[in-house]
């Protein structure tokens, strides 16, 4: 029996909130109840004011490309057959910088993008940045 290779599945417990939001089609990140700072990657307390209670809230998925790379060597067997992979750094309008998969149409610094979370073949959500959907175009 052949073993199906899946992408890396390990995540921290907090990631379940991201998976849950994605099943609802929502882009949610931890937001500080006190100072409203948006946190990414997810952490358990506010990096700004150090408040201990964060709420998972819907935030704007819009941002701009800061940089990107065309990855042609991977350390994981799942990706070795799927190269190249395009990865970007996106500065979200709501604050944080995200490492994301980047659509090939967006391989330019400054490109406005929308980030969407979708489960990959491991069942864990990964984020993809692409041109904003129509409803966000005027946003």
């Amino acid at each position, binding site marked *: 029996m052949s073993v199906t290779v899946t*992408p*890396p599945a*390990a*995540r*921290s417990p*907090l*990631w379940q909130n991201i998976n849950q939001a994605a099943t609802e089609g929502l882009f949610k990140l931890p937001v500080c109840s006190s100072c409203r700072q948006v946190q*990414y*990657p*997810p952490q358990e307390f506010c990096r700004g004011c150090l408040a201990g209670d964060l709420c998972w809230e819907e935030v704007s998925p819009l941002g701009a490309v*800061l*940089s*990107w*790379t*065309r*990855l*042609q*060597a*991977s*350390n*994981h067997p*799942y*990706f070795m057959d799927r*190269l190249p*992979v395009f*990865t*970007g*750094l996106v*500065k979200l309008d709501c604050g944080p*910088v*995200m*490492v*994301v*998969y980047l659509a090939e149409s967006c391989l330019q*610094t400054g490109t406005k993008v929308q980030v969407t979370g979708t489960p*990959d073949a*491991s069942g*864990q959500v*990964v984020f993809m940045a692409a041109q904003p959907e129509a409803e966000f175009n005027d946003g």
Partner: protein
Amino acid sequence: MLPYKEVALVAATSLPYLKRSEHSAAWFIGMTFARMLKQAGLQKHQVDGLAIASFTLAPDSVVSMTEYLDISPRWLEQIPMGGASGPVAARRAARAVQAGDADIVACIGADTATADTFTHLLQNFSRFATDAVYPYGAGGPNTVFAMITRHYMEQFGAQREDFGRICVAQRENALAAGRAIFNKPLTLAAYLEARPISEPLHLYDCVMPVAGADGFLVMSVAQAEALELPYARLLAAGERHNAWAEDPVHVRGGWSCYRDELYEQAGLGPADIDLLQTYDDYPVIAMIQMEDLGFCEKGAGPEFVRSQTLTWNGGGLAHNTCGGQLSAGQAGAAGGFLGAVEAIRQLTETGLPNQVPGANTGLVSGYGMVNYDRCLCTSAMILGRGGQ
């Protein structure tokens, strides 16, 4: 701040790097310790302090090492700072010696490289990396530093040739030093034509993970002189972590926060530094260190490397004189000690094949720990030629 100047660094010691090893990190630490003692003419029980940096020592720690080495130190330190660990170890050990908490401290960075240690390390490097970087192609630090490199190129007009100059000069240094794993000449043409890894990074921009160890002893200048050991004097040291977090992409490191203080402590300026050992996980990071440590202005790195030979014997600033990790490979946390041992060697030994002519001062810089989208730890120290 209390000056460091009565502290000596001696007995720079290296185990030859290996592409793979079935030995544990503990073995590399043990063999380095043994060599270091022999070089300094000491018995193991004379060492009363031990500082270790290693990614692959777990589940053991510096504590386990006391039992393996059968020593009973009165001062222990483990430094989880990867590429910044060498100067940080020297700094911590220096303070222990000055305070009288230890007389002779062995500082060792060591890591093994079995078939799966590197993959395991990448996958579990930090919580942020596991959640938010590794799933995107599992490129490891190449992904992050490719994006930092592209941003730097777009911001400051650096060309691949500029990074190539650093890599080619380092290979020339490595060939002279004769200790590096990569022992074939590298031309700029070969650098430019190498296969892409994570564009704009290509093969020779990336370090190869290897097994190995480097270390040195820290003691008072009086102690080194009593033992009749050649020593390098610690003139200044600093560290800073998670600096410039507000920069959306990494373009400057913590060095810029303390470089003025560093030069003031040493009573020297950048123009007085004979040899610079930067942490070269990627050439853009070496360039950023040249800027942040005051050898040129921010953004003038490309122009600076065009104006220098960067080789051990080219005159001007000698840079990464043993070839750095780009030629020697990256032996985990030992990579954070490579610049330190090379600088100590240059300032204490004679007859080195790559001896920088007339070198009396060296600056060693460290950089480590990609928690998410950049390394968080920076360190630096200035050394001067001591007596004996």
